[in-house]
């Protein structure tokens, strides 16, 4: 506990001429004090400090073993299990060691410090506002026209920088939410780019299909079902839409846009696995259960002279979940 500076240090001259190792005369002196630690609050918390010391030592040795084990595991390109276990052992034991040192081998306390209320005094408020208002605000208000001009310039800066920041992020929606790539005469095409013929689809099966120019398209995806072999009429006006039992619906759920990927043959229903909306095929994919608010749009099909399944036209309404600009059809 003694200050060794400045006494008995051999003098070597530095290039600057000041003796090396000698204290900078402008530095404040370092003084040490011996603080009285006899108060009971300074006693360690451990009942048996020797035993706690030994336990803590064991923690640190186990930590060392864990970290060394991680090193070994790493060089041996060991499994994730060994790497993680050795690292976890090291970290946990290190943590236990440090924490037990802090909890049991350091002053038990309690200590206190004063706390000032946050609420300021009227005097403090008065002085602050005096400076703020009389020195600053009045000076600005005196030349209000300058403040307005500065504000106008800053506002223009804000507006013109908002454009590259926001407007350039993406195209405007325009009509893209209303349209898919299905057109009059589009071939019903599977994911392997094969145009689907009537003979390809067994009764009771489901295939995900696309228009031939948008295979894999997220919005155009459609389920082609073949529940029976005679025409299916889901509602009036759709008498010709499902020839020979081939029926197609948009695969984009009208609830939150997930692919309506599960076909329950027994009940002739389509299930969306995200939020469990159920759609009844024979009533035109009317939602019968779950949160979906609207039926899946039905794609009108026809079968051409060579047996290819094709679209009579595109969807007659926007597919997928709703959006503000979408009209109020139910």
């Amino acid at each position, binding site marked *: 506990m003694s200050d060794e500076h400045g006494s008995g240090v051999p003098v070597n001259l530095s290039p600057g001429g000041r003796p090396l190792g000698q204290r900078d005369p402008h530095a404040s002196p370092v003084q040490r004090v011996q603080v*009285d630690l006899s108060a009971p609050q300074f006693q360690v918390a451990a009942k048996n400090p020797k035993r706690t010391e030994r336990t803590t030592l064991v923690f640190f040795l186990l930590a060392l073993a864990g970290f060394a084990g991680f090193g070994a595991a790493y060089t041996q390109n060991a499994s994730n299990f060994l790497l993680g276990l050795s690292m976890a052992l090291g970290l946990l034991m290190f*943590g236990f060691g440090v924490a037990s040192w802090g909890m049991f081998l350091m*002053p038990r*306390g309690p200590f206190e410090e004063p706390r000032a209320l946050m609420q300021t005094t009227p005097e403090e408020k008065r002085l602050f506002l005096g400076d703020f208002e009389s020195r600053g605000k009045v000076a600005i208000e005196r030349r209000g026209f300058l403040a307005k001009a500065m504000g106008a310039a800053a506002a223009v800066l804000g507006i013109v920088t908002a454009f590259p920041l926001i407007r350039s992020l993406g195209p405007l929606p325009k009509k893209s939410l209303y349209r898919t790539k299905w057109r009059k005469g589009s071939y019903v095409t599977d994911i392997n780019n094969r145009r689907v013929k009537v003979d390809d689809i067994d009764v009771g099966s489901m295939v995900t299909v696309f228009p031939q120019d948008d295979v*894999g398209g*997220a919005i155009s995806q459609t389920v082609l079902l073949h529940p029976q072999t005679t025409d299916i009429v889901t509602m009036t006006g759709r008498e010709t839409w499902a020839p020979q039992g081939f029926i197609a619906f948009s695969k984009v759920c009208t609830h*939150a846009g*997930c692919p309506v*990927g599960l076909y329950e043959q027994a009940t002739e229903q389509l299930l969306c696995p995200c939020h469990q909306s159920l759609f009844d095929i024979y009533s035109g994919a009317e*939602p019968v259960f779950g949160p979906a608010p609207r039926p899946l749009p039905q794609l009108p099909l026809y079968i051409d002279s060579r047996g290819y399944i094709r679209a009579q036209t595109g969807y007659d309404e926007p597919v997928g979940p709703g959006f503000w600009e979408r009209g109020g059809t139910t």
Partner: protein
Amino acid sequence: MIDRLFNWMDDRLAISRGGRHLLNKIFPDHWSFMLGEIALYSFIVLLLTGIFLTLYFVPSEATTIYHGSYRPLDGAHVSEAFASTVNLSFAVRGGLLVRQMHHWAANIFVGSIVVHMLRVFFTGAFRRPREVNWIIGANLLILAIFNGFLGYSLPDDLVSGTGIRIAFSILESVPFVGSYLAFFLFGGLYPGNGAIIPRFFIIHVLILPLIILGLLGAHLGLLVRHKHTQFKQPGAREDNVVGTPLWPSFMTKTLGFFFLTTGVTALLGALVQINPIWQYGQYYPWKVSYAVQPDWYMGWLDGALRIMPSWEIHLPGHMIPNAFFPGVLLPGVTFTVIMLWPFLEAKLTGEHVREHHLLDRPRDRPVRTATGAAVFAFYFVLFGASATDVLANYLSITLNTVLWTFRIAAIVVPIIVWPIAYRICKELQRTPNAGKRKVHNIVVRDANGGYRTIPAEEYPGYVGAELEPLDVEKIEVLTAAGKVTEPGVYEIPRDYR
């Protein structure tokens, strides 16, 4: 040498002027104050493991053919993001461990924020003057949830890709600006033009972490300015803080706690598999897997999406889609009410007139506690509802039954929880010393065969409460002349060496 270094720094930075108060900053001792520390430390783990992951992850949706060490995927057409995630899991040494630690730390991060928030709520620590810090905390929770979602969306696997699709639909559902919001964030109509993963990446690793760091700095800065709240205990008053000083006790304890948090994360990373994307496979917009659940902290939103009745609002030429109510309105109302709660409560109780630094026992505030419990029960039901399909499968009952059970439970359970919680509070108030550590009684048989009980000694580890708190800055200096009590600045006699 260290002396001289200290002196050099001190003469230039005035360390000893403010530093002494920092060394002496008091941290009250209560286990519930460690919950926020878990959040802080898991965030540090997130930063460290996250930096490692950015070195190997390729944020690109460009298609590549996978030829890596994971044989079942050999030759598969996948995105760069997916391939690099599989690669950093299997081809980079320790990569899987770090990735799993990162994911687990994210779950712990959000979880500890929620539990920390509950602690602050039920003990009334949000009251004046800490309303601002409560609002900052709520924003940290929102950002943590967002960033967690963005993070698990990055690998471009089948499960997370479905989540991104739902996120697009929820954005699209916002009245007036929804489709613009969705188009601007995704760079166009879903699934965008390869912009999603790069954009999510930069938001996940740069933008949100910076905002979180800034708010975290403000959160902790305000904590230092206000000083800690404390429970009512001997010696604790509104105008003091009783506990452990930063140096050396608290610093050591909390450093140990940091390593324990990291160690638990490493243990989970080693033993408990999380998000095995190679089992889910690459995301394709037309593919979907059964029983898809998001990470736990998105569960309440997913559950709300599931049990929402199939309503939409139709207006002339416009509509408010179904997903708006559970996806935008619910979280919007939730976080607005959370942030406004301190003001609502102050208005209702008229207690905004004074500062509060002593905490409430939850039982002493039965209305607040019951309200908090009921609201929490509501979100817990929503959380459970995100497993409707799994429950129906597991319990072999119809989805219909499960769905309606949750729809009814979401309304009924909070109504039941409120009076029960209120009753428990009232009962606890009447029970003396409830929750306090009991002193054991020793039954002694005397020589005459009679029995009497004597209280046992205090539990050995339970110290502190019986001593008067000592002012840390009231230093007692030993001088040659004896003991001198010197508050504040003191001069040391020249002959003291």
